[in-house]
């Protein structure tokens, strides 16, 4: 167990990794990655019951699936700093012959990744399948998944949401990154999602909200509450209110940095706001 300061220091380093990775190749998705940094750190450092090493079938451990694969920078940073592969490999992000593809994939054999994602809307179905495999195997561990809010515009999600409650997939905690932004603007402007809590509840999910989705302590408390609600006949949805671009002031509260890399000057500004803690890769 780490204390809050240690987790915050970890998160600061993850932010530096994200900025440096996307800057190095002048591409990638920093906004959503920064917004979910605290969530990933809480997940991999505190919440997941993980086994050492990596086994694709993941029997006897909690599993995580990233559906909105474009926030691969935060996923890669946290996976590497949680021991799945060497931190130095972050320098290969989006480069030729790398295991760190633009969007996560199993194809290159990167430990920690169990499913390709990038084409949106597919992760919840996969997470449900993995959850049902756990039940068949008599494995009491949980499946966690993360989805973008804009991603819920993809219809396959609603097939999956309907199915999960009907079939009582209650070993699944699906978290929605509620940052209110997507490529073309705010989710309200592009295609209003309406009240997601009401929608998930109408589909008979158990829904809870984490209002401060960039506060480590709030995330830990909320996710522990979510975990306590598993095994009761309903899938659990966490609406995680985050700020896109969190921790880098000029990237916050806008969709502008969804898929755009900082230039040299902007990188320097962003790094100055996030001083090195665990050592850069």
């Amino acid at each position, binding site marked *: 167990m780490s204390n809050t300061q240690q987790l915050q220091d970890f998160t600061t380093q993850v932010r530096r990794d994200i900025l440096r990775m996307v800057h190095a190749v002048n591409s990638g998705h920093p906004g959503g990655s920064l917004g979910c940094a605290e969530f990933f750190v809480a997940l991999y450092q505190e919440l997941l019951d993980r086994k050492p090493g990596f086994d694709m079938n993941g*029997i006897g451990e909690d599993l995580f699936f990233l559906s909105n694969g474009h926030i691969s920078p935060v996923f890669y940073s946290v996976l590497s700093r949680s021991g799945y592969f060497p931190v130095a490999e972050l320098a290969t992000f989006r480069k030729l012959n790398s295991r760190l593809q633009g969007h996560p994939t199993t194809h290159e054999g990167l430990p920690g990744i169990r499913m390709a994602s990038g*084409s949106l809307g597919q992760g919840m179905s996969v997470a*449900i399948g993995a959850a049902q*495999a756990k039940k*068949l195997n008599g494995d009491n561990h949980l499946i966690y998944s993360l989805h973008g809010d804009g991603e819920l515009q993809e219809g396959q999600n609603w*097939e999956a949401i309907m*199915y999960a409650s009907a079939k009582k997939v209650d070993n699944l905690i699906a978290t929605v990154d509620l940052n209110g932004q997507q490529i073309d603007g705010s989710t309200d402007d592009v295609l209003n999602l309406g009240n997601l809590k009401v929608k998930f509840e109408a589909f008979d999910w158990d829904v809870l909200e984490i209002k401060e989705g960039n506060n480590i302590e709030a995330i830990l408390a909320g996710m522990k509450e979510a975990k306590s609600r598993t095994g009761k006949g309903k899938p659990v949805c966490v609406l995680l209110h985050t700020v896109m671009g969190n921790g880098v002031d000029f990237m916050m509260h806008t969709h502008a940095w969804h898929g755009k890399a900082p230039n040299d000057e902007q990188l320097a500004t962003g790094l100055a706001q996030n001083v090195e803690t665990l050592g850069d890769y």
Partner: protein
Amino acid sequence: MKKYTNTGSKDTRSGFGAGMTELGQKNENVVALCADLIGSLKFDDFKKNHPERFFQIGIAEANMIGIAAGLTIGGKIPFTGTFANFSTGRVYDQIRQSVAYSDKNVKICASHAGLTLGEDGATHQILEDIGLMKMLPGMTVINTCDYNQTKAATLAIADHHGPVYLRFGRPVVPNFMPSDEPFVIGKAILLNEGTDVTIVATGHLVWEALIAAEALEAKGISAEVINIHTIKPLDEAAILKSVAKTGCVVTAEEHNILGGLGESVARTLALNNPSPQEFVAVNDSFGESGTPEQLMEKYKLNNQAIVEAVEKVLKRK
């Protein structure tokens, strides 16, 4: 050469159902998923015998493919079942990302392929599925010809690690492959030896090719007939060996002329032994309503069409 005769007509999808019943008993990791078509896919026995391993997904094929991919994580071997159209075109990106690119051990089993679905018409008669599936890296593509071969293929793909597309059909057709004929993925089966022309057929057209070979024999033409159940990986050696002897080939399939078996054979020949080829296939069109027999006649996918194609290709030798 052994003589293949119709031992009693059956539908290929019942061969799939029989294979699933046997797999359910033999392999506890096999699970089945269906999108509201249990009866059509002949899943009834599997569902009854193994309710905990049967997943009724509802009319949500995209979700079905994703759930199948997820089930492999945990060691399950999922067999999805729906019509060929909804098994491929409707869910192409789900198969591409969550199954093929993710290297997942999912068996996509598709009934009611091609024109012989019949009266439902073109919305349901996919003629592009072989092409769609064979273009996916790592995907094995199998199109079986009768009840026995479909059952054998169903059992064989459970032991093969990797994504598979298994295509079969709706109508009752002659059952002529011996029930003890080994099914080896990627290995063609020589049904009839000949010296003048090679007929490479898949699916329902294999029986038609055997009938055509008899008719050709009466005309003094010696036709070699090869049953290609696996379109990818294609048994190129068997095809090249035969064409080296006969010097020309006719391909026959219940599929669009674009993207199917014929193109795979043409590519093989172009690279190794350019030879005259004629195609028995649908000429880049959609289907329509009608009985299977009427449709196969109208779209020239029967033994007469194969005979005509042979006569044409012989003139080009």
